[in-house]
């Protein structure tokens, strides 16, 4: 019986507990996956086309929507590209605030990925714990920016709000809570023999394949490639902070999960440094602060909330090209903005980490078992709206 008759084509479609917003077309022979092709595009809302008809400042919320679990990376990458075109550099305090929000967002984005991975291999406790322990960090971000997930906190020339009083103590409390919880996570989930049996040795990505396929983020670092944009091209306040790039060697599902867990610990270390070393000073670039009438400027100082200068409504960016990249929770976000001096960009190219990781589906699941498909899918921390844009 030839391979065609033996294989069963399984459509793990958009409506499936472990398929996310896409369809996995899997050809399986018995319990072995012969070939799996992801059929993406179910959440394609053409952010790049809409960006060409929106003004520069209106694009900030638009750019954040696709990767809802990790919005600061897209927002920061887009605004850095604008600042390269405008030729301005945000004040020191704004850089530290941007780093603070990026790290809070990385922690709860990793917890989101670990939770979804937990429910995909069957442990609803891991899902509930991760989503429950994600809430303190959502509240921290909400206190800093006013929103749970879609912050739009970073604007060209600085940030929208200053650090509220007593933020450091509340942040310390949330961090202590998560550090205390880590021991429970290791007892019930990470060192659980069933989890180890399901994840170790599954979906192994060798170092050469990881480089050849151009993947990014924890999936790359779990295969031993020590590449992190925060070290390769330091931006915001990362040049002044010391943290190390987490890598693992095995490159299997367990290694990817462990890289994310240890990166949460690293982000906690960074948040503590930022809260300790944050300098005083303005949070908006002086060229924009000059444009605000003096009376409003005083009020802005006390309330710590930036009043948008009127020029932002019709911001004209000088013609040119800018490429910027940022290390988001899921990997490297690359922005390529081409502007021709008008009110909206001529062409904006946004490459999100999930779109660069989608090639892993075909590569890793060849020869795996049917029960490994959700294990591998979850370990990639793949967020379909971010890949389809």
């Amino acid at each position, binding site marked *: 019986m030839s391979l065609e008759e033996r294989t069963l084509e399984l459509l793990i479609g958009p409506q499936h507990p472990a398929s996310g917003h896409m369809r996995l077309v899997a050809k399986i022979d018995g319990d072995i996956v012969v070939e799996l092709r992801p059929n993406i595009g179910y959440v394609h809302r053409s952010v790049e086309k809409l960006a060409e008809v929106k003004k520069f400042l209106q694009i900030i919320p638009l750019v954040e929507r696709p990767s809802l679990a990790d919005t600061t990376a897209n927002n920061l990458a887009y605004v850095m590209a604008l600042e390269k075109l405008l030729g301005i550099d945000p004040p020191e305090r704004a850089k530290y605030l941007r780093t603070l929000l990026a790290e809070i967002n990385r922690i709860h984005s990793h917890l989101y990925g670990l939770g979804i991975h937990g429910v995909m291999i069957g442990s609803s406790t891991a899902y*509930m714990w991760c989503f429950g322990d994600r809430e303190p960090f959502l509240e921290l971000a909400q206190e800093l920016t006013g929103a749970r997930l879609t912050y739009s906190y970073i604007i060209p020339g600085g940030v929208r709000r200053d650090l509220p009083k007593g933020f450091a103590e509340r942040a310390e409390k949330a961090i202590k809570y998560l550090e205390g919880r880590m021991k429970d996570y290791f007892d019930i989930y990470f060192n659980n023999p069933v989890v180890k049996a399901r994840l170790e040795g599954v979906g192994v990505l060798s170092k050469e394949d990881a480089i050849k396929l151009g993947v990014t983020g924890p999936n790359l670092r779990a295969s031993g490639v020590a590449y992190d944009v925060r070290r390769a091209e330091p931006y915001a306040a990362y040049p002044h902070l010391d943290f190390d790039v987490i890598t693992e060697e095995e490159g299997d599902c367990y290694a990817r999960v462990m890289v994310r867990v240890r990166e949460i610990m690293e982000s906690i270390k960074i948040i503590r440094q930022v809260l300790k070393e944050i300098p005083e000073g303005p949070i908006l670039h002086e060229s924009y602060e000059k444009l605000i009438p003096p009376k409003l400027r005083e009020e802005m100082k006390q309330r710590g909330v930036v009043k948008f200068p009127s020029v932002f409504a019709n911001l004209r960016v000088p013609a040119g090209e800018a490429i910027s990249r940022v290390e988001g929770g899921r990997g490297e976000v690359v922005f390529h903005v081409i502007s021709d001096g008008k009110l909206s960009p001529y062409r904006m190219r946004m490459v999100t980490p999930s779109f660069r990781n989608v090639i892993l589906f075909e590569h890793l699941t060849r020869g795996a078992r049917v029960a490994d498909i959700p294990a591998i899918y979850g370990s990639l921390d793949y967020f379909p709206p971010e890949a389809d844009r």
Partner: protein
Amino acid sequence: MNIIDLLFQPYIFIPLVFPGLIAAFVLLLIIIWLERKIAAKVQLRYGPLYVLKPLGGVIQTIADLLRYLFQEPIIPKDVDKVAFLLTPVFLFGLAYLPLVIIPISPTYYAFRSDLSLLIALALATLAPIFTLIMGWASNNKFSLIGSVREGYLVTSYEMPIFLSALSMAVLYNSLDLVEIAEAQRKIWGVFLNPVAAANMLVLIYMSTSKFPFEIPEAESEIVAGPYTEYSGIIYGLVMGASYIKLYVLSLIYSILFLGGWNPSPSPDPLISGGVLFLKAFILVAFGAFLRAVYPRFRIDQAVNIGWRIAFPLSLLSILISLILILGGVSFGS
């Protein structure tokens, strides 16, 4: 002999009321609610609450049952109607059958034979056949894979369950549940042969697809396994059947290993039956608790455990029983 006395005759009371239909149905309602509450407790949340706020949402399962009752039972077009509709009814009905054999006190039993352990175990093994038919009948790729997985699992847990149960029968040299329970008056079976006890407990959870062995209806791989195409009350029957099978197997287990009704103060059926029910309830609740602890195994790992670990352990437990007997441990009669 008016109606009331007739009701309390053992051969009516046992299958209908106590360990039989009504008690199993009440246990079913409580267990599904308890499973969601235990899982919620472990997961730092409340679980079903506002259905009946003062009592913590106890009647949530009744609400679910009502919804299933009034939900449209969809019968897909190209489905084998007879097999599709009848298998859940058989599955749910036959899950009750072994309860006829189970005695609840030395004198009060519906049907006694000196092979009652074998009959109970044999009736408990009927369920997988209907899961296979169900998977084939509902003409859906996921249910086909789910039922074939159930077929795999049957080969890996059926044999060791029988062997570890029989190792206890060898120890008590009798196959009659009443005699086995009576023989444990002084010491429970679990202390005599712990290997068989541990082995059988794990295999009970494998046979009723409790976590970490929830493989036939693994939701993240094959939507609901053999039960994907079922909706309405048919799905309610199917979902209840696995809990009833767990209740039946834990009753057999508590007779074999936990001394049946032994520490019961008086031979009165209600009290000794209550002790037996309590032990079975604890085992079923522990099975429900496992949902919050473990993810699920892959099918090849489960079959691997069945053949490489459970089967040798059951042979070992028979060896232990033989050594105990040669060593002079003997039970009356």
